């Protein structure tokens, strides 16, 4: 007990002294490990490059300003492609993730074996970055928008599936009990007791993923999976920094708009 008696008065402490020392020792070891890692990183850095980093950054930004607005018109189609990749990919991902999350949630799964399969799909989708999915898909279905959409969809399945099945597991069980006791069928209990409880989470997760996907879709062009990333890559390879800046500004504007849309949707549903 973390209580000791001083002059017969009980004095309470949060922990036993030995445990307290052990915790201090743990923090000390953690701090030492941090410093050690810092030293290794420092030893492997070529500091000569760092001395003029400020000038380099300054000159890069100088070459980006002013952005080359003349290419804006030719970027509109790739930008539209990017938005489409994100939107269609998200929709496709949600379509697959939605039933999967009901199979994966402990309280709605029809069978533990199905739950294991659903969880395995969700984990494997999550463990691979959209850019890697895109690289794989470009070799399978060829370069272009379609590969991009599939890449976004495959990555979104795990994200939406995981967050949604966690939301399903967190619902209040009493309405489920109440509707089961009326004699309602399983599907009716899902539609009346489970769905209303997860609907705000579902809307929030979906627009959040769409928002992330807009940003991810801008990079897919780097591996040939369509969208504005292709133009950005070309501009970087040509060292046309003013054009790169134009792409940045357009991506920035698109992301701002998508943030605004997702905030509106979340606000409307909750």
């Amino acid at each position, binding site marked *: 007990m973390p209580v000791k008696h001083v002059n017969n008065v009980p004095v309470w402490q949060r922990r036993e002294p030995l445990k307290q020392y052990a915790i201090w020792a743990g923090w000390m070891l953690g701090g030492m490990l941090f410093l050690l890692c810092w030293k290794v990183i420092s030893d492997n850095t070529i500091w000569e490059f760092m001395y003029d980093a400020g000038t380099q950054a300054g000159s890069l930004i100088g070459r980006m300003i002013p952005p080359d607005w003349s290419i804006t018109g030719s970027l509109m189609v790739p930008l539209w492609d990017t938005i489409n990749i994100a939107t269609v990919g998200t929709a496709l991902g949600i379509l697959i993730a939605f039933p999967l999350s009901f199979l994966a949630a402990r309280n709605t799964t029809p069978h533990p074996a199905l739950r294991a399969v659903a969880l395995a799909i969700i984990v494997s989708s999550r463990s691979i970055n959209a850019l890697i999915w895109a690289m794989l898909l470009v070799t399978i279905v060829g370069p272009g928008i379609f590969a991009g959409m599939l890449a976004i969809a495959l990555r979104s399945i795990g994200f939406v599936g995981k967050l949604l099945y966690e939301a399903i597991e967190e619902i209040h069980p*009493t*309405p489920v*009990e*109440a*509707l*089961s*006791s*009326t*004699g*309602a*069928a399983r*599907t*009716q209990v899902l*539609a*009346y*007791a489970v769905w*209303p*409880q997860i*609907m*705000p989470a579902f809307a929030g997760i979906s627009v959040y993923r769409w928002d992330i996907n807009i940003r991810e879709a801008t990079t897919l062009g780097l591996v040939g999976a369509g969208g504005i990333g292709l133009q950005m890559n070309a501009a970087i390879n040509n060292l046309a920094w003013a054009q790169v800046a134009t792409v940045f500004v357009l991506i920035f504007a698109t992301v701002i708009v998508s943030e605004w849309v997702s905030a509106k949707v979340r606000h409307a549903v909750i």
Partner: protein
Amino acid sequence: MLKLTGLSKRYDTGDLALNDINLTVPAGQVMALIGPSGAGKSTLIRCVNRLVEPSTGAIELNDQDITRVRGTKLRQARRQIGMIFQNYALVERLSVMENVLSGRLAYVGFWRSFLRRFPASDIQQAFNLLERVGLQTMFDKRGDALSGGQKQRVGIARALMQNPKLLLVDEPTASLDPKTSRQIMRLICELCREQQLAAIINIHDVVLAQQFVDRVVGLRGGELVFDGDPKDLSPDILTSIYGEEDWSVVDDDNEDAEPPAAASVDIAGAHP
């Protein structure tokens, strides 16, 4: 109407929640089930509609054995049994009307219920019931916009939408203030008598039970220790159900016309 024979329930943890319960509830009888927390009251009523699976024994509803029925048969048995909950168990994001109509789910198909296209007679019945429980103007409110008493009225209307033969009522007043508790108990008991429903009401408030019910059954440690008229609840019997305690206040309450209000005023006065 309802007949339990040798009903026992042992949970996976090894706890024996119910031990050889034999109980018959005739149609139209309102029965209170009293007993300390953990005595098995909730387990008993949840065994009746099979939210909890009994370990041994038999449950007969209208001479039909429903102890082991599954699938459609189980749903048909359940729709004859309405249930009312302590924490109301409404779907808070659905409207009052949708909550009440959800009592009809066992009578309509999935797509009809999904698209909210219930038969006109169901909707008429829902309006009648909402009027009966005093919420006729509230049908379009969302569940989470109601007060506790109003939520419980919606819960009652949902249970009655099933056109049940039996009502299982689990601590209907435990989350309500004393006045609302009385109104809710009165409403439940009136409706049972109007529609000749049998009812099992789990309740902690012995005085409230005595005021409204026809019969009291006492549970202790999963066993039936009392079964009789509410008037026969003597201090000795209460001791046999709940254990040793000074029951004289409860006794006074029985003789006084309006004692609980007075008692609560006293308590309030003691801690200003």
